[in-house]
């Protein structure tokens, strides 16, 4: 490990000219994009752009599509997405199809500058030449907008060092345009192409290494993304999706909601809303077929799936609460300090999810039994759903579960971290696996995880780089001394 770290930091120090050959942008030729009837190609490109969810990261709400400006707040600094409209001055209007392919698949711009892997080029590397062509034709035809995002990417030291990404790419960007896997059937291969490539499932669902590359030994085994937990989606029957039906998986991808299994929140809600929702049933089915073939990874010690709690439990203390003693002119009427889970559940949750956690019969309000967020050993998504709410635009209806944290609430209703912990504990005790022992501090940790859970190497990168530089200089000095000495020897 240590050796690899040093290898990386040495790579960082190589001069830019050595690592990033600068190519002059070739004037783009529309002619090369004319072999198929153009409307079909355009439609195909538009569809593929949906699968790749390009718009989500290259558009800021209230601005024109694909004009960029979306800011990724990462431990390494802020990364700002670019304008990918065909504007010659500010967008990709001067790019040739080759330039386009290189940027998407390799993360290298026509001028040789490197993109950062907030752009999922490690996955997009799988895109075939044919699909690159359709995407290129599509992006030549979106409305050109002559504006540039007001903010620029600003990485902290040492991530702003030239050459860094070349080294990183050598270690992490190792995929090539897709070739069918002879061990899979046609549908599974289509699914694999989409899931590993454009749909970039792995970007969120595969744990990362110390240097933030995807850890392929843990492919799709689940990890944390924007404070939420992107669950294990391997074929494991206990920890993964092995016991979900095809229909449930398809419904989840199409609508963000699988009855009796799970509901999409946070970044997955966005992915459903902006991407999966638009996929053809055939492609959804293909992705499902492929996910079945992903090697199972079991969470050690897990005995049953997160959604597998089936017995609805009646809320306790209900009768006690009903009896009541409140009087409007007494301080009880404005005392909001309780951390009693039953009281908080009944006044914050039960109006929609039912006093027994049963949800509504039409499942618009999900049950809390048979619910992955509640039954999971990891309370992250339960806490995040309570704290941030669920916001999803589905096919049939829009879904809003209001947020309950003081900062995010929108209905004049809030809970303190201690109250979120106690309501989450009540819910997991009554409707989950009785693994309730959350504290206020843990709730705060979960809701601010992006700032806390940064790999050691990334967190200490500046120090490590300087150390490596010193080690390098000392080694170099030793080496020179050794050479000088040996050259003097007879």
């Amino acid at each position: 490990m240590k050796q690899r770290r040093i290898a990386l930091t040495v790579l960082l120090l190589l001069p830019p000219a050595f690592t990033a050959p600068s190519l002059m942008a070739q004037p783009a030729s529309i002619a090369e994009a004319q072999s198929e009837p153009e409307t079909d190609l355009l439609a195909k490109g538009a569809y593929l752009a949906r699968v790749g969810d390009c718009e989500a990261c290259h558009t800021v709400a209230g601005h024109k599509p694909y004009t960029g400006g979306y800011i990724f707040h990462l431990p390494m600094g802020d990364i700002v997405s670019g304008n990918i409209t065909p504007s010659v001055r500010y967008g990709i209007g001067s790019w040739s199809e080759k330039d386009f392919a290189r940027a998407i698949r390799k993360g290298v711009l026509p001028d040789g500058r490197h993109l950062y892997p907030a752009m999922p080029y490690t996955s997009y590397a799988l895109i075939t030449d044919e699909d690159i062509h359709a995407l290129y034709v599509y992006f030549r035809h979106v409305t050109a907008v002559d504006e540039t995002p007001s903010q620029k990417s600003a990485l902290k030291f040492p991530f702003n060092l030239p050459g860094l990404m070349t080294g990183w790419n050598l270690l992490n960007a190792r995929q090539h345009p897709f070739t069918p896997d002879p061990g899979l059937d046609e549908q599974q291969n289509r699914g694999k192409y989409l899931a590993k490539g454009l749909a970039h499932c792995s970007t969120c669902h595969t744990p990362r290494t110390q240097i933030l590359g995807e850890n392929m030994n843990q492919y799709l085994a689940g990890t944390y993304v924007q404070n939420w937990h992107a669950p294990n989606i391997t074929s494991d029957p206990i920890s993964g999706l092995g016991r979900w039906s095809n229909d449930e998986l398809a419904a989840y991808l199409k609508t963000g909601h699988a009855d009796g299994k799970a509901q999409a929140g946070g970044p997955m809600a966005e992915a459903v809303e902006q991407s999966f929702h638009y996929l053809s049933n055939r492609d959804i089915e293909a992705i499902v077929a492929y996910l079945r073939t992903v090697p199972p990874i079991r969470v050690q010690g897990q005995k049953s799936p997160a959604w597998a709690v089936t017995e609805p439990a009646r809320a306790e203390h209900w009768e006690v609460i009903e009896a009541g003693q409140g009087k409007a002119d007494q301080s009880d009427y404005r005392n909001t300090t309780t951390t009693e889970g039953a009281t908080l559940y009944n006044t914050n949750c039960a109006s929609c999810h039912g006093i027994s956690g049963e949800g509504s019969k039409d499942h618009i309000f999900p049950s809390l039994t048979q619910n992955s967020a509640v039954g999971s050993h990891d309370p992250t998504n339960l806490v995040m759903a309570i704290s941030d709410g669920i916001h999803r635009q589905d096919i049939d209806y829009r879904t809003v579960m209001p947020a309950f944290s003081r900062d995010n609430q929108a209905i004049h209703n809030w809970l303190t971290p201690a109250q979120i912990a106690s309501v989450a504990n009540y819910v997991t005790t009554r409707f989950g696996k009785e693994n309730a022992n959350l504290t206020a501090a843990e709730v705060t940790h979960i809701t601010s995880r992006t700032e806390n859970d940064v790999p050691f190497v990334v967190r200490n990168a500046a120090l490590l780089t300087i150390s490596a530089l010193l080690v390098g200089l000392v080694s170099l000095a030793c080496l020179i001394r050794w050479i000088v000495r040996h050259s003097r020897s007879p």
Partner: protein
Amino acid sequence: MAKEYDADVIIVGSGVCGANVANELAKKGKSVILLEAGPNLPRWKILENFRTSGRHYDRNNAYPNNPWAPTSNKPGYIVNTGEFREQPGLLKLVGGTTWHWGGATWRYIPNDFRIKTLYGVGRDWPIGYDDLEPYYCRAEYALGVAGSDTEDQSGQHPGEAYPRRSQPYPIDTEELIYSNTLLKEALIPHGHSVVHEPTVRIHKPYDGRPACQGNNNCDQVCPIGTLYNGSVSADHAVRNGAKLITEAVVHKITKGEGNKIKSISYLTPSREEHTLTARYFVLAAHSFETAKLMLMNNIGNSSDMVGRNLMDHVGLSLFFLAPQPVWSGRGPVQQETIMTSRDGAFRARYSANKHQLANNNPQIDIARQALEEGLMGKELDERIMDWSARMMNIYSFLEPLPDPANRVQPNPDWKDALGLPGLKVHFTISDYVKQGADRIREEYKNITRLMNGKIVRITDEFENHDHLMGTMIMGTDASDSVVNHEGRSFDHPNLFIASAGVIPAAGVINPTLTAAAMAIRSADIIAREV
């Protein structure tokens, strides 16, 4: 440089009017202090209070009624001296009295602004519909209103979208519940106008609020936060930089140079006094309490009109049995509205009206009546089952005219825990309204007949509907009006009133949206001057 003022603008009251003024000014980068006499409570606590109260028909009982900030439930706080008992459901907490309301958010129609010119009664507004129209739009988007862009809301322009709108409603209309479809089918072929009520009880999510799921509890507290109330805008204001101070009971207003308001003072529950200065002041403390505060301090009253011209949409109600089960009490508390008599030449002689089909759960009233009739055992059970399925309820508003004799004043004979006076209200119902009520009774018979129903009861006594207008009346003439068309005091150039109390002609529609639109308009004017 020493700080000259504590804030650019100080706003008294965090209900729908005050909170919207605060949010508009905070959005524009003004420094804002928002004062609220009551506490700041999360919704769940109010829901807990509601459930524990055991008095579910008392819509005020879930809310704190603090000795230093009483609600209208406090015995002695409101004393009536007129023939009519004007007892509104006034609340004191962040968000104000919209914590419990039906959510009706109508616009006035152009003729409502010109009732004196057109019909020779009441007072004209100092502005017209077109002046207010852009602000109606902004209020509808601030509150999140669901409404129909295609219907005639006046009853006078069949087939036309009326009144004119420059922007669509932010949310479309929901599907009709069964009883409302029956009403439409029965009435429209006979010349009645039956239209969607614009509402902030929304059937699609908006601004982080979830879609309505039919708890049928708007009149007490919405348990899931679908129904807009002023606290939504107060929270926006705070996130946009406004400073909210709660349990701050404003009692003193001081004048300075040029008749400008110089400072206001408030008392905490423990009677500590704090004084704050600002360039501009906005009073948004309810039609009663704002008038009381002005009269206590002799502010803005050169016309002697503060507290006078009190208007409310008093009305009647009809209970009838439909021939078939309609199951009132499922879903929204109100939906369709009969606008047949909203406007017309008859307004020269008697009051217009609006009929609202209520969809509240009728069982307690049914059981009470059955017990009073002496029903017991099986008969009682059958009555409750049968009538609960078939009972329908319509309640109606009448249009009051401004009369200076109808008024609210401080009541020095009653004092709250801080030693501040209570409210003395004098309200009588005019012949204009009473004749309108006679017409309502005829219409009730007609509606019941068209529905093939059987009348159970038409109320004898007028009911109040909490729509308190006129007490800080708006006009063109400083000698008979408290504020001008901007909502600005004629006496104090840096004092504005944001309240339904400025409304000079009441029409027959719920006034909250108009009050919010006027508040946003005033905020724009203030923002240009501070």
